């Protein structure tokens, strides 16, 4: 019978083991700092000892920055004049919308501003519109950037341009859409009077360079000319300037000196009427829609104004802000390192800086005074507990007759065991007690 299983010498358990040890451990993971999660690392702890210096440092840096910002902002001279009601004749005040919509009324109005401080060139002129939601989704999307850029794409009108997409004759409007259509069209011209009774002198308002270079270069096409613009039954805002703005100082003088004519013109009917869009900086500025319901740049005056000078502004109040009760103002401002006058940034820096200091101080006080027992050796070399002892006493509900065994490790760890009168050790539920409670950190040993 011995042959029955003679062929049965399969791999036995023993040879399996041998095989396993002989072959290298195939499944053994390789050591690597990455897979063993032992990469060298820094382990920051946001404890007071680190937070306090950082806070102090931030405070130290922020306050000077803030002061510098305030100074920079204060240097900027800004004159704001709101004219939306002032420029409406008293008899029309009850119905300002009717006034503004009546084309036959001459809307010129002259304001006299007093320059509070010396203003160095360049002086920027802004119009300020309020409650005007340029950021309304319907409004912002109502334009065709293709059309603005490429003369061949004049008919590339997005459906969002409606209802200002096509003229009555069906040909496309360039530039189409509500944004262009509602172009701001109040105009300002300035004359200043040097000293008392001095002669008035018109100021040249330069309207070039007020837009972004990229707009001039790429966004608004060089060979794109307005078509059918403001030609429909309902006129929204301003027309585009038929002439190059930079050379239009003569025009402004004319506005100021002569009674103005409302016939800026309808000469843009034609195909190539007017100036190409890449020169229409007013439009560019306007089409960079504002983030919030406010503000736009108008032009620049390259002249210095002295303190106390009077400035006559002739406003042609064309733009209808009355239906939505929006305020209009004209703003003159010089420019500083940070731009215009706004004390917020500086103040915020100062406040944050001060807050950092206060917090740092507060933290320091909290950490110093709260639960730390002070231990000192007297001259005889005995150990004494001083500050923080009372807190400790209350925190642990110690009573007369309790026995305390204190162990001091010589550095900063003092351990207590508390035994009550019944000789039982008192155990504390330390979840509510702060860290320093049971083994107070000891300083000044």
């Amino acid at each position, binding site marked *: *019978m*011995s042959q029955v299983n003679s062929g*049965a010498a*399969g791999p*036995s*358990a*023993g040879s399996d083991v041998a095989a396993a040890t002989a072959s290298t451990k195939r*499944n053994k*993971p*390789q050591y690597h700092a990455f*897979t*063993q*999660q032992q*990469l060298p690392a820094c*382990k*920051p*702890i*946001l*404890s007071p000892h680190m937070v*306090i210096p950082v806070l102090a440092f*931030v405070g130290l840096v922020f306050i000077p920055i803030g002061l510098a910002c305030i100074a920079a902002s204060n240097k900027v001279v800004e004159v704001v004049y709101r004219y939306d009601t002032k420029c409406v004749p008293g008899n029309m005040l009850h119905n300002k919308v009717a006034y503004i919509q009546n084309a036959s009324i001459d809307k010129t109005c002259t304001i006299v501003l007093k320059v509070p401080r010396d203003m160095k060139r360049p002086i920027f002129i*802004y119009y300020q519109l309020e409650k005007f*939601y*340029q950021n309304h*989704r*319907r*409004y*912002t999307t109502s334009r065709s*950037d293709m059309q603005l850029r490429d003369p061949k794409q004049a008919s590339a009108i997005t*459906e969002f341009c409606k*209802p200002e997409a096509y003229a009555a004759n069906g040909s496309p409007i360039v530039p189409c859409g509500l944004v262009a259509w*509602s172009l701001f069209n109040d105009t300002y011209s300035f004359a200043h009077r040097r000293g008392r009774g001095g002669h008035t002198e018109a100021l040249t308002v330069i309207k070039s*360079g*007020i837009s*972004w*270079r990229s707009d001039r270069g790429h*966004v608004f096409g060089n060979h794109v000319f307005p078509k059918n613009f403001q030609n429909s039954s309902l006129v929204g805002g301003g027309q585009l300037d038929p002439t190059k703005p930079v050379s239009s100082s003569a025009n402004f003088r004319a506005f100021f000196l002569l009674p103005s004519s409302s016939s800026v013109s309808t000469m843009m009917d034609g195909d190539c009427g007017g100036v190409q869009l890449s020169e229409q900086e007013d439009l560019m500025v306007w089409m960079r*829609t*504002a*983030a*919030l319901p*406010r503000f736009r740049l108008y032009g*620049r005056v390259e002249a210095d104004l002295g303190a106390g000078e009077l400035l006559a502004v002739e406003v042609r109040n064309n733009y209808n802000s009355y*239906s*939505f009760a929006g305020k209009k103002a004209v703003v003159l401002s010089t*420019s*500083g390192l940070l731009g*215009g*006058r706004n004390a*917020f*940034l500086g103040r*915020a*820096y100062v406040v*944050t800086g001060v807050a950092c200091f206060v917090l740092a101080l507060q*933290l320091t006080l*909290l*950490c110093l005074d709260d639960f730390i027992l002070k231990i000192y050796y007297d001259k005889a070399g005995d150990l004494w507990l001083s500050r923080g002892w009372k807190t400790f006493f209350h925190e642990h509900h110690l009573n007369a007759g309790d026995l305390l065994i204190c162990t001091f490790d010589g550095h900063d760890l003092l351990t207590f065991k508390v035994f009550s009168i019944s000789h039982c050790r008192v155990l504390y539920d330390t979840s509510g007690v*702060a*860290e320093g409670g*049971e083994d107070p950190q000891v300083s000044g040993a």
Partner: protein
Amino acid sequence: MARGSRTMQKLKLSALYSFALCAKGSTEDQSKIGTAGFSRVVYANDPDRHEAEGFRYPRNEVSTTKYSLVTFLPKSLFEQFRRVANFYFLVSGALTLTKLAPYSAVSALLPLFFVITATMVKEGVEDWRRKQQDHELNNRIVKVHRGNGSFEETKWKYIKIGDVIKVEKDNFFPADLILLSSNYPDGICYVETMNLDGETNLKIKQALEVTLDLQEDASFGNLKPIIKCEDPNANLYSFVGIVEWKGMQHPLSPQQLLLRDSKLRNTDYIYGAVIFTGHDTKVMQNATEPPSKRSKIEKKMDKIIYVLMFCLLAIATLGSVFFGIWTKDDLKNGKAKRWYLRPDDSTVFYDPKRPALASFFHLLTALMLYNYFIPISLYISIEMVKILQALFINRDIEMYHEESDKPTHARTSNLNEELGQVDTILSDKTGTLTCNMMEFIKCSIAGTAYGQSVTEVEKAMALRKGVLLDDEIEPGGHKEKQIDESPHVKGFSLKDPRIMDGNWIHEPNKDVIRDFFRLLAICHTCIPEVDETDKVSYEAESPDEAAFVIAARELGFEFYKRAQTSIVIRERDPNQHVVDYQYRKYQLLNVLEFSSSRKRMSVIVKEPEGKILLFSKGADSVMFRRLAPAGKKFEEETKRHINEYSDSGLRTLVLAYRVLDQEEYEKFAAKFNTAKISGSADRDEKIEEAADSIEQDLLLLGATAVEDKLQKGVPECIDKLAHAGIKIWVLTGDKMETAINIGFACSLLRQGMTQIIITLEAPDIIALEKNGDKYSIAKASKQSVMDQIEDGIKQVPTSSQSSTESFALIIDGKSLTYALEDDVKFKFLDLALNCASVICCRSSPKQKALVTRLVKHSNKVTLAIGDGANDVGMLQEADIGVGISGVEGMQAVMASDIAIAQFRFLERLLLVHGHWCYRRISVMICYFFYKNVTFGVTIFLYEAFASFSGKPAYNDWFLSLYNVFFTSLPVIALGVFDQDVSSRLCLQYPELYQEGVQNVLFSWRRILGWMLNGVINAVLIFFFCTTALKDQAFRQDGQVAGLDALGAVMYTCVVWVVNCQMALSVNYFTIIQHIFIWGSIAVWYLFLLAYGAVDPKYSTTAYMVFIEQLAPSLSYWLVTLLVVLATLIPYFCYAAIQIRFFPMFHNKIQWKRYLGKAEDPEVARQLSSRQQSSSHPRMVGISVRRDGKAMEVDKGN
């Protein structure tokens, strides 16, 4: 065929071989053939006939892939969009194609596309791997009969039903086969079923007698048997069928069935007929998807998403209401208010005449706009993070087991963070806590105890009593003792010069000793394997049996050979010093198999001398009752020894034998055979009855004691886990005494603990059991269990009361049956949860699963760990199933979520990886929501200043890339790499683990806190930016900031703030974090540059915005600096105050580490004890070791 015919004669006897191995199929079963469910007809050796007869059987090609080329796209897309968030993004993505969209469709769809593609690629790669595996399988080669007795090599996939195939040694079966014959004349073959049930022992299969002689290729020429059998099903252990052979019908049983994926061993070749192919095979039918488990954190995350969606809907509705009011206001009595919007000539979306409709459409727009509240990349990021985390777990060198060459294997990465929240561990004992490597350590023969080794339990007990055993000279207790002069034999550590090296011959009762060891060598079901050097090793079904056979071998009674009908043992003559073998061949007459109800096994053999003997071994409870009065000579001593052994945590068996006379045996054989052949339902009972009748009047030989060694490091590991506040329940099938002793050995129990024992071994119940009816027994038992539980509850103070005493609950299986009944179980749970340790003894696999389910009721995370098939239910039921890839095969591992090689790795898995993963995932999710809330709120605030018209503050691409480019990588880095404390400290301060159990890092308070932080940050960013850049020029050239500039400024601030906030939350700043965090910020600027340089057609409002407008403006940089710092300072201070005054445990450890004292054991003890006393006063099982340590420390002081 001389050889064949000679063995044929023996075959009559082989029928007697064993009843358990024999067919269980009864005629009753066979009669079902042809009815529903049993309709399969196989024309063996005639595969082409099936088609002709109209049978359609699947091909043998299997595919385990989830998708095919065609179904991949729709199916995986469907999977993707089943997730709420993804579906939401799909819907909002679809809406962007309409005019409602606040941004361009491409910018919204691209990130979604990106995220979905990434996930699909991941799915695809996984499926591709499966396909590769399938391909490899399908193209394996096997020999198939191609007519006229010629066999041809064919690929597996071309095998058809009815093919006759020839499988050679050490090859896998390609399909389910009916065994026709093998190279052995009696038609047996040995099969290894490791891939099926994980059992490593060989199983014997046997062909029907009628097909035995088909032993050559040529015999298959014209054979056309017909096989009729059951339809494909998943039951591995049953099979019903018949074969029509030469006009006769012969029943088939599982004994003839060879299953696909099992392996032919120890047999040169077999012939078989294919009956099930491909997906019909039993192994494929069994392939079920493991239950997919989701972690609690992920479930909570879904809730957070719902909360966010609700918030989103709320603010969108709020916006829509305002929008409606304002839109309606625009046109009054034909007068346009905001004339520049042309309300008189409007589309439906802005129509003041239909404000309700407009605001409804606006609501849709707003929902799209605010979808940045919900992080689109959250799921994919979490998935990526988890895969990397799982990689770290798999690659951890400290969880690699050198001996078995097995690393830890996270089979699913879904549960990584759940590992950090485990509250209760339910552990199997054998093979999990213990090695399941049985060591024959002691025995009691004829009333004399042999064996002087000291068991681990004894060591533990000695330690408890403070006595040092002589054995333990070195103080380093658990180190392996140096190997003695003779090499250690695995499974044998009996040390006793009285019986070793043949000295037993000088003992007074040497005859009993000889019979004792002969019994050990004969009474078992092992299979020997003799290698070239004539050394024998054994394949055994259980390690106990192997230990017995090995013990017998070591003492000179070597089990040498097993044939169908005989067993050969090789005895060393103890009298001679020269090795001289004496072969003794026992004729094997019957094997009366072990079963859990019988608790014993016996063999009936005929000695070479002709005596018929019955050898029996079994549990003491059944064996002592069966002793003949004459056989009780040593009963008292043996009983005492058995008690001692089980006190020492050993497994004991009682050995006895009996001499049968021929007549008696024949009577039994007749009875036994009729019982076996009978097909009636009570067949098993009859067999048992027959066996029972013969196993009487036994003569006691003695008892064996086998130690199931504790795995290395188990007590220390349990110690650490107990420190960590994890409750450990041991669910074992062992006796109560053994279980308690093991409990002591692995420091689950300690002397000072009050043991609450719930048992039905009370005298009154036993008395009732003897004569009561079932109903009254059940009633009384239940009442008794109830009373005991109530008593226990009274003893254990509720958690609010403080007490330093700890309790252990020990319950036996019978009581557990009643304790798990619906009306009792919550009381039981209540009691169990208040005990530090719980031990359930004598529990069945089902009970294990039920207990697991019960513990889950307490809403705590449960982890089940086990190694055997009996733990599968428990593993699948628990929140996390951990399988030990140990001795008992792969079944538990297959059902587990994570496989480890040793119990002790659990410590590192939970305390280090679990803790880290929990921390990482929860911080990561919180942060994810934070960053999106921050972003979303700035958009919302801007809306309020844009009359809620739905205009986003940012450029379209800024919006859509926020989650993808500028903020995602740092979070992923946090999720993968962050560590609050190093792994060493995690292990040194196990209490840290409670952070996960109590879920402090992912509590609603914390989540909402993070969101609040997000809201505050957003408000600060928005108002600082808008106020600082409001009216005036923001640069020297006089220009003011338009929407494009302001959007870019705000966005810059958001990117800085969220990334710096991340930097503040990171605890572990490696180079990777630096690269990702600062890199993300740098990428934003680079993007701004690059995107700004693109033609304005594409870059729209971002055209040149940085290079022309922002970069030259000092204000821009100052605003950024101010906003970032001012926004972060509140958190900064909060963190400092929290760490200083309300530190969490990890903060404390970090602080000590900073002071350089974290490693100091004294500091550790103080920190830990305070932590423990505050969190879980009594819940934690404080172990022996810890007390010992505490005492040491006290002494040191």
